[in-house]
């Protein structure tokens, strides 16, 4: 779900080529996101999980999969190890 939310945002709102995400070694830097793009992208998640993710400047140095794992770890750390239902939260 986390991956789908971010990918959909980047494809539908930021106009990124969906084929980019077929590459398992995709680097975040290859997405061409500036600092405002990055905080907008993270807001898609923050709005659903209800807290602000720390230090977005770390992500451009990561692979896309690594970033997803890092965000998931932050969400779990905020929720006693659980992963909330992001889609359900988004509809409420």
């Amino acid at each position, binding site marked *: 779900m986390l991956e789908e939310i971010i990918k959909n945002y980047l494809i539908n709102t930021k106009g990124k080529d969906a084929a980019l995400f077929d590459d398992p070694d995709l680097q975040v830097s290859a997405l061409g996101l500036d600092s405002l793009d990055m905080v907008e992208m993270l807001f898609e998640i923050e709005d659903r999980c*209800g807290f602000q993710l720390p230090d977005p400047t770390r992500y451009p140095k990561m692979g896309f999969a690594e970033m997803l794992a890092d965000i998931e770890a932050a969400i779990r750390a905020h929720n006693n190890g659980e992963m909330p239902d992001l889609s359900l939260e988004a509809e409420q």
Partner: protein
Amino acid sequence: MAQVLITGMGAISPLGADLPTSFARALEGHCAIGTAPANISKWLPDILLAPAASEPAALLDNKHAGLDRASQFALVAAGEALQQANFPAQPENSRRVGVFVGIGFGGAHTLDGLYDRFQAAVNSNGKRNPAMVHPLSVPRMMANAAAAAISMSHGFKGPSNTYSIACASSATAIGEAFRAIRDGYLDAAVVVGCEAMLTPGSILAWNALRVMAKPHATDPARSCRPFSQDRSGFVLGEGAAAMVLESAAHAGRRQQAGLGEVCGYGCSSDAAHLTAPSSAEQVYAMQQALADAGLQASDIQYLNAHGTATPSGDVVETESIRTVFGARENSTLAISSTKSMHGHLIGASGILEFALAVMAMNSGSLPPTATLETPDPQCDLDFIPLHARHGCTVNAIMSNSFAFGGSNVSLVARRYPS
């Protein structure tokens, strides 16, 4: 000093999604005023609004979907004006091309949305965190958001200035751009006025000021009644209008025809009352504009009045116009308030009305004060009641914008070539 030409104009207004449509509907006397949507009328059942004829986002690339509605209006109007002017994006002399924007209340939709969202989160039984706010809320609602969007979209690297002088915002933007080009600081400028605040929060605030029109007994669309004995106030509208101004030399190098020449700008402050107008400084603004243009009052054939339909505002403006142009029997000046049809676009009013006046000058067709059925005896000038006047010879026009805060602006344009 350079001659300053208008080479392109555009608008998205309650009357139409472009300027030619807006002007055509104004000549028809069409009043684009109606009842408010449910999220406003449930609190204020009698409030009237003049929404834009088209959704701006539908006319823009999807990359602009996140902008505040006022910035979207600005981009639409600027695009039409630039297209008419055949003005290139990323011009070679980009540092000599400025952006001048007038807006009364920047970011009203963004701010109202932010409070809505906050309220919903507070009432969500802990399911949403009220502190989670979109990270671009500030750049969306900053007053200069529209100027930034136009500058970035078209690659204009001269000054991108925003003027916020309530109802005189975009008239001031025209005047300041005119001076910058005339005095040689710039070759060209895109001037835009935009406003989008038909939101519950904004309308509640305007209603509290007791300046809004009451619904007309038989036809709510005809509720804004400038210079009429039964006038009761104005109706808020939304939208934008734009002009490309450039020096005659710059337009000549591009072989671009002028639609008119901006030739006079006058501005003054009442320094008296926050909302009540005073005649002396309105007169001074008009006299300055005439002197700046090197024209006499008798050289102006049409004036688009500020004409908001407030009880005192129309009487004071009539007195001011009479002082400058003479009594009706001594003057051939025709005057109208097009706010009777498109409502009051606050920061966008000045440029929309100036653009309509320029179209009137070039076409010889003068838009009416469409709802002027029973003139107020105190408003005893030729206010073109009810129906447009066609076949007129118009060599020069004036447009007035008088703002809360006591700021007065008058603009003059003449035919080009004269």
